[in-house]
Structure formats: structure tokens, C-alpha cells
């Protein structure tokens, strides 16, 4: 029970942080947005996603080959090598178009459009 209470407390703190940032930039909805992108068969699925600013995008490697999330133009931090089952997450705070690719399989390309 103690454990559960502590988790709830952390949740409250996180929510508090969210409310604060919401006040700082009122266009961002209060609820935290997340979005999943799968890496499967040497492709990003979905290949192009459109999300609101502040969305946390998580990639999960479902291939048996490693992949590396690399921002074209270095607009966000690249991942380390993602082995099978590994995930990588980036929070996109600013609107824009973020093209990315796998640096070791560069024909794998994707785009995150942040509005």
C-alpha cells in the first residue's frame, strides 16, 4: 500500500509540472500527449505522424535488427542503437516538421509534424 501511495504522489508532482507548463504556453492542452511509432520490417509505422506540440513520441524496435533514430538536420537528439524491443522517446515541444531516418539503414525515413 505504501508503494501505491508513493506512486500516486509522484503522479501528482508530474501533473503539477504539466499544469505549470500549460500556463506558460496556453496553446498546449493540459493533458500530456503520447504517441507510439513502431519500427517494423525496416520501416517506421506510421511513417508520418501529426501531433500537437508537447507530445512525447516513443519508438519501439520490433525488428530483429538494431536501428538508430536520427534527426535529419540534428533537430533532436539521436538515439543510441536500439536493439530488438528497445524504445526511444522524444518530447516535441516546438511546432515544426521533424524528418528523421535510421542512420544505419538510411532508406528508413519518417516524419513527425508537430502543430
Amino acid at each position: 500500500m505504501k508503494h501505491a501511495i508513493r506512486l500516486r504522489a509522484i503522479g501528482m508532482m508530474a501533473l503539477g509540472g504539466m499544469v505549470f507548463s500549460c500556463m506558460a504556453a496556453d496553446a498546449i492542452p493540459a493533458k500530456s500527449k503520447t504517441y507510439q511509432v513502431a519500427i517494423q520490417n525496416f520501416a517506421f509505422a506510421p511513417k508520418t505522424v501529426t501531433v500537437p506540440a508537447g507530445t512525447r513520441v516513443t519508438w519501439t524496435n520490433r525488428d530483429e535488427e538494431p536501428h538508430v533514430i536520427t534527426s535529419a538536420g540534428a533537430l533532436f537528439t539521436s538515439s543510441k542503437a536500439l536493439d530488438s524491443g528497445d524504445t526511444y522517446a522524444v518530447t516535441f515541444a516546438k511546432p515544426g516538421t521533424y524528418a528523421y531516418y535510421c542512420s544505419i539503414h538510411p532508406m528508413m525515413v519518417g516524419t513527425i509534424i508537430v502543430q
Partner: protein
Amino acid sequence: MDTDDSRADGRRQFLKCMAWAGAGTLWLMKSGVLHAQPLGQSGTGQSVISKDATFSFVQISDSHIGFHKAPNPDVVGTLRRSLAMINAQSTRPAFLLHTGDLTHLSKPEEFDTLAGVMQEARVGRSFYVPGEHDVIGDNGAEFFRRFGEKQQDGGWYSFDQDGVHFVGLINVLNLKAGGLGSLGTDQLAWLKKDLAGLSAETPIVVFAHMPLWPLYPQWGWGTDDSAEALGYLKRFGSVTVLNGHIHQIQQKVEGSITFYTARSTAYPQPAPGEAPAPGPLQSVKPDALHRYLGIRDVRHVRVGGALAVTDEVLT
């Protein structure tokens, strides 16, 4: 053996042979002509070819140290087995070429393991070029520190052996989004200069990790600016291009240039287009891997002053 891969397939212009082995290829230089001899064969042809060869070298590729899943949970074991086959050769190869993907994830401990195991190879020396798996996160700094020839800043290099000119190229760095392998303008300029002083009769062997021809671009199996490099090589009478990356033997002849890709010592990949994507051919059970060891012979023969390739299935 391996007749199941010989189905007619008009879709592709290159000769096709899906085969793999936990072995390498022994290359024999005879009168300026390369002969390829798969390792691990019990056929008698080997000693006949070896007898009057000027020298021989061996190629292995795609060890993927760190890979631990189906179809091969023991890539160190299969690399060891490959080196044992090299060591069992009647003639000691002058050197070994490793055409990249030494490791699976560029981890220091993976490089450590690879370096340790490679000491078991009884060859004059070893040359390496990196695969894309060897340059993750540091643009190859660790690879070049340990295995680089340090001739040029970019890591590419050349050397001569008994009148044959060998060129090691790097095509796994600075890859562009949406593109294939890349040599880059600096390396191409160096290559042009490196070849400039050589007579057209000089046999040339070029090796790099990714295929230096558009083998199957849909899966990234090619190099964006390889045509430029091949342009510099066209004037030579005998050019052999050795690549890895695709974990299976493919070959193509274009004028005096013969292209080969090598098997992996770790795991096979599907033939081009015969799966949704490349990657380990997991359907091969670990205890059945050895059945893929029997592969074909590829050799260069001189026909009317030009080079041609014949496929010869060993028994």
C-alpha cells in the same frame, strides 16, 4: 547441393544464389587471375587450384558479434569454426579480409571479443573495413582505433600484394536520409588518384562492406555513388569487387568488373525481395545451420583475354 536456389528468376539481372555458410572464401591468385574457393569443401578441386597459385587470401564477413538470437545464438562459435576452416587450408593465406559488421552494436566488449577470436586465424595478417553495425554512435572511432589501417583520415586504404592492387573502401558513414551506402567526394577523389598511376594490366581487388552495385536498393543493398567509383575502374582488365552486408552470395559481371557478396559467419538473410524486409532468417533452426555450409564454387577464368565467371557446384 543448393540446387533449390537455382530457380529461374527473370526479375533480376544478376546471377543469384542464396547460400550461406559459417565459413569464408579462399581466393587464389594465379597468373593474375583470381579464383574463388569456398572453405569447408571436401572436394578435390581445391588442391589442384592451390598448387600453382601465386598467393591466396581469404574473405570472411558479417560476424555480428553480440547477436544472440535465432537462428544463431552462438555467433562466436560459428566465427571460430570459420577460422578453423581457414587454418585447415593446405596453403596459408597471405592475409584475411574482413568485409565488415564485425560487431552487432559497436559495443567495446563486442570489439574485444572479435579481436580476441581473430587471433586464432593463422594468416599473414588481417585487413578490415567497417560495416554499418561497427560505426553506431561514434562514426566508427572505436572501429578505426582498433582495426583501421590509418593511411588516410577517412579510413580508406590500399596496398599491393604480388602485383595485385587492393583497395579498402568505407561506404557506411555519413549516410543520407533516404539513401544507400555512400563513399563521398573525398574518398572518390582519393580513389581516382590512387588508381591513376597503375597500368590497365594491374589486377585490382576492391573491397567494402555494402554492395558497390545496386543489388537491391529497396532493401538498402547498394551504394549511392558507386557508379563514380566504377567509372575509375573500367579501364582495368581485371577488377574484382568483394562486399558483405547481405549475408549471402550474389554475383554480377559488368565488363571486366566482377562483383561478389560474401556469406556471413553469423546468420543468413533472405534473398532479395523474398521476405517483407531484410534481417536474420530466423526460420533456419540452429541445429540446421551446418546444412548451409555446402555452397558453390566461384572462380574467375580468362576467356579470350577477358575475365568471365563460371559457377561450379562442388560435391
